[in-house]
C-alpha cells in the first residue's frame, strides 16, 4: 500500500487507531464544526510532519519530543490565528479544540513514528492520508449527528465557506433526537459507525476479525 492509502484507510487515526477522540467526539455535532476542525487538523499534521521530516537529520535524540511539540504548537497557533482572523464565527465555536490539537496523539504519533524517519515526500503523503482520514471520520460523524440531533444537514456552513454556502442547508422532516448532539450521543453514534465500518471493511477485505482493536499497533511500512 502507498503511504497515503495506508494512513488513510489501514491506519485511519479515528476509526482504526481510535486516536484524537476528544476533539472528534466534542466537535462533531455538525458538519460545519467538523469541517473546521478537519481542515485545522489536516493543516497542522501536514505542516508539522513536512517540517519535521525536513529537519529530521539535525534533531538531537534527547530533545526529540520537545522539538516535535514546538513545531506542532507553532502550526497549531498559526491555525488559531488564521481562524480568528478569517473565520471568526467558527473560531468562537471550535477555538478550544483547535488549540488542543497540539496535544493530539494522532499528530505527535505520526511525527514520532513516521515523519522523523522518512524523507519529506513520504512524510507529506503519510500526513495527508492521516489528516484526510481523520477529516472523513469527523465529517461522517458530524453529518450523522447533525441529521439525527438537529434534523438538518450542512447548516451554518457559511461561517466557514462564506455566503455561497448560505443556501446549502437541508432540512429533514423528522423529529430531532437531541441526545445525538450531546457527548453521550457522540459516543453512541461513534460506536455504531465504528462497528459498521469494521463490519464493512473486514467483509470486503476478507480479513478475519478477532473482535479486538489493536490500537497500539502503529507499526509502519518503511
Amino acid at each position, binding site marked *: 500500500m502507498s503511504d497515503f492509502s495506508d494512513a488513510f484507510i489501514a491506519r485511519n487515526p479515528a476509526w482504526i487507531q481510535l486516536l484524537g477522540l476528544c476533539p472528534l467526539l*466534542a466537535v462533531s455535532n455538525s458538519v460545519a464544526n467538523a469541517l473546521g476542525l478537519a481542515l485545522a487538523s489536516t493543516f497542522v499534521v501536514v505542516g508539522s510532519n513536512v517540517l519535521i521530516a525536513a*529537519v529530521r537529520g*539535525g*534533531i*538531537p535524540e*534527547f*530533545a526529540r519530543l520537545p*522539538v516535535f511539540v*514546538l*513545531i506542532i*504548537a*507553532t502550526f497549531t*497557533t*498559526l491555525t488559531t*490565528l*488564521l481562524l*480568528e*482572523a*478569517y473565520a*471568526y464565527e467558527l473560531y*468562537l*465555536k471550535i477555538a*478550544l*479544540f483547535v488549540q488542543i490539537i497540539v496535544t493530539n496523539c494522532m499528530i505527535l504519533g505520526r511525527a514520532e513514528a513516521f515523519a522523523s524517519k522518512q524523507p519529506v515526500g513520504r512524510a507529506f503523503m503519510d500526513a495527508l492520508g492521516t489528516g484526510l482520514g481523520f477529516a472523513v471520520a469527523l465529517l461522517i460523524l458530524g453529518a450523522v449527528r447533525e441529521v439525527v440531533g438537529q434534523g438538518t444537514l450542512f447548516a451554518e456552513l457559511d461561517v466557514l465557506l462564506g455566503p455561497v454556502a448560505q443556501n446549502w442547508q437541508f432540512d429533514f422532516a423528522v423529529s430531532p433526537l437531541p441526545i445525538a448532539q*450531546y*457527548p453521550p450521543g457522540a459516543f453512541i453514534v461513534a460506536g455504531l459507525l465504528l462497528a459498521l465500518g469494521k463490519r464493512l471493511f473486514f467483509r470486503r477485505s476478507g480479513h478475519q476479525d478477532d473482535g479486538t482493536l489493536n490500537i497500539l499497533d502503529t507499526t509502519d511500512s518503511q
Partner: protein
Amino acid sequence: MRDLAKHVLFLVVMGGVCGGLLHFANAITKADIDKNRLLAQHQLVTELVGSDKFTDLVVDSTPAGDCTNGLLLKQIVPGYAGPIEFLIYQRISPEVLRIRAVAHRETPGIGDFIDSRRDDYLPAKDKYTVLEWRALDGVTGATVTSAALRAAVWKALVVVSEKCGGDI
C-alpha cells in the same frame, strides 16, 4: 562538546524559525483579529444595552455611560481555566442588570453555560433584579465558573454603588 554545540545551535535556529513564523502570522492577521474582536464586542454591547448607543465607547473596568442611562463596565475574574472577561450593564431605574461573557476558556459542556453564543443561561436572566442576581445559585459541576459569575456581579454592584450611590 562539538556535538553539544551543534545541538544547541539547531535548537536555537528551530526556535527562531518557529518564532519568526508566528511573528509573521501575527503581523498579517492582527488587523483582522482586532476588527473581529471589536465587532463581536459591539454586538454584545448592543445585545446588553438594547441599543447601539454605547458601542463607540471604550469599555474597561471604568464604567462607561451615566447613572441615568445606565453604566456599562468590564470585569475580569478568575475562572476554572483562566480569566473570564464579563461585560455588565446596570441601570438603576428602571432596574436592570445584564451580563455577558466576552472571553473565557471554561470547559466546553460544563462551564461554558456563561457563553451566550452556546447557552441561553445568561440571556434568560436579562430581566433579573439585583436581588435575584445576589441570590443566584451555582450550576452543578461548574462551581468555579458559577463563583466567577457571582464575583463579577458583586464587583459590578460595588462599582456602580460607588458611582451612583444606593445600597448593594
